[in-house]
């Protein structure tokens, strides 16, 4: 009698605590959403869109790196493939509504990602990183050579056009809310993937691939799918970026961009959902503000310093460290 009452008590308190936690999370998310909805009235919308595009790029990369344990050193290829495809189509087919251009760019990156995956997925660790790097270099070579990309001049004057043929995206606010909606959709999709049984298998592969194999999972197929989804989302980020800025350039295809997305993910916290978003916000901001401040000439060494400090002292990144802190002191 006494015992069962106690158990019921404990049970009740656990349920209560879970509910409280769930409430907290919901409130946090609602708060974030409100912040994002209000943001363009306080901060320049194009800059916010840049952050959102890079955040999506980092989220896509993190799905592969943070959750599956595959370090791709060639993700710039997908960003650029999406951007160039969308840019080319919107510039040359004036009737095309914007979302179709973006979908086409995403598809191009998806197919490219599938090709990359087929050639690289069996390689392990550093070999995987190097094969993706090599493939991305070949893609870069293709973009440099191609007439349609405009070479180092870049592709300029891409029209933003109309969403669904109706909503005028030349208006920065409507463009912003469109980008925000796509970003939130993708974020929720990744959240869903990670917590699904499929996501659990990916995590299992990351932790111990041989065991996942011996449990009977077709590991390669899981990895290819993760790679393709990651490439598709990276391409989507590139497509949106080209519409937002109305330009696409070789910078997006250069291997430094592949390095930058690693930095974003690492700084924010790899293997966490919010980490890449925070990381992208951080990196885009310091790059933007430093390049105009008194430390204008020192952006690269400072980014290098961020790399070094993160690897040495905060390997779990901003979000990871905060989680650790909460677990230690509050949980």
């Amino acid at each position, binding site marked *: 009698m006494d015992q069962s009452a106690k158990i019921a008590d404990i049970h009740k308190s656990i349920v209560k605590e879970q509910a409280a936690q769930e409430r907290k999370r919901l409130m946090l998310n609602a708060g974030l959403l409100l912040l994002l909805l209000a943001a363009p009235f306080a901060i320049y919308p194009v800059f916010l869109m840049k952050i959102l595009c890079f955040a999506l790029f980092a989220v896509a990369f993190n799905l592969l790196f943070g959750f599956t344990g595959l370090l791709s050193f060639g993700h710039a290829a997908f960003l650029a493939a999406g951007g160039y495809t969308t840019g080319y189509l919107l510039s040359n087919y004036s009737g095309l509504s914007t979302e179709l251009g973006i979908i086409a760019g995403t598809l191009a990156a998806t197919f490219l990602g599938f090709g990359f995956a087929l050639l690289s997925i069996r390689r392990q660790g550093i070999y995987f990183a190097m094969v993706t790097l090599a493939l991305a270099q070949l893609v870069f070579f293709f973009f440099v050579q191609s007439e349609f990309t405009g070479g180092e001049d870049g592709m300029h004057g891409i029209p933003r056009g109309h969403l669904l043929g109706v909503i005028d995206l030349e208006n920065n606010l409507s463009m912003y809310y469109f980008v925000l909606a796509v970003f939130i959709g993708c974020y929720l999709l990744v959240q869903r993937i990670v917590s699904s049984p499929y996501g659990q298998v990916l995590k299992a592969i990351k932790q111990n691939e041989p065991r996942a194999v011996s449990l009977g999972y077709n590991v390669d197929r899981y990895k290819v799918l993760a790679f393709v989804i990651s490439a598709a989302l990276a391409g989507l980020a590139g497509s949106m970026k080209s519409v937002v800025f109305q330009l696409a350039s070789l910078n997006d295809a250069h291997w430094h961009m592949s390095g930058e997305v690693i930095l974003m993910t690492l700084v924010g916290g790899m293997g966490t959902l919010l980490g890449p978003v925070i990381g992208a916000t951080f990196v885009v901001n310091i790059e933007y503000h430093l390049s105009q401040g008194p430390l204008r000439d020192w952006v690269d060494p400072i980014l290098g310093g961020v*790399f070094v400090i993160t690897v*040495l002292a905060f390997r779990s990144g901003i979000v990871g460290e905060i989680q650790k802190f909460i677990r230690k002191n509050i949980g």
Partner: protein
Amino acid sequence: MSMIFGVPLAVLSGQLLIGIINGAFYALLSLGLAVIFGLLKIINFAHGAMYMLGAMVTVLMFNALGVNYWVALFMAPLLVGAFGVVIEYFLLRRIAGQDHIYSLLLTFGVALIIQGVLINWFGVSGLRYTMPDMFKGGINLGFMFMPYYRAWVIVAALLVCFGTWFVIEKTKLGAYLRAGTEDSQLMQGFGINVPLLISLTYGFGVALAAFAGVLAAPIYSVTPVMGSTTLIVVFAVVVIGGMGSIGGAIITGILMGVIEGLTKTFYPPASSAVIFLVMVLVLMFRPSGLFGKEA
């Protein structure tokens, strides 16, 4: 004149020779990377920066103190090697035992810092360095004009490559090295200072890069950005050879020099991409590279 695929034989022989020279140069650069990865399991993305430092130090020592080429050939690798030891001691040591990927990210950061600081100090258009007088001129081989300096590059690079391979694979010192990095506790028990051994090995690896930098100083434009493109190519060479295989890096380096040289003759625009194409192909059929141990 006899022709091969529309290219005169004389031109082709010249291109092959050039390919071998460049190959020897790649071999030297890859060698340092392979030593560092093979023995320490560190993926050294700062290798390009160290190569650049070697060249920069050579020019700066000459400008400031009049240090000549031959002295620089020893001093520059020594200084850069010491710098490498410092980096190993203060930075890389702290992430020993972590995933290799972290060493890649850490050294990538270090490279960004070195390059960025030097750009601010010395600009990007390049520093002037004149070739030592004894190397001026060259010899006509009939099919091409061979500058003396290029002949020296191939001799110096191959000597250092072979010497390094010999020391690591065939001598007692090399055996200690390999054992020390494989089972450090056991070697520590034998009274060998393993941490020091590791620092010195990293220092030696980057000193090799710096040596290549000194060789490059008279023939390439010496700028803080000279290492960043070279780095990617050299990494490709090491991966094709099999990460960590020292002999593999040397042979692959020469092979890639030749392949690149032939591409420059038959289809020049692809000559920077061909190495990556080879890399993708090789890894499809041999996942651990040409000479790597199967994982």
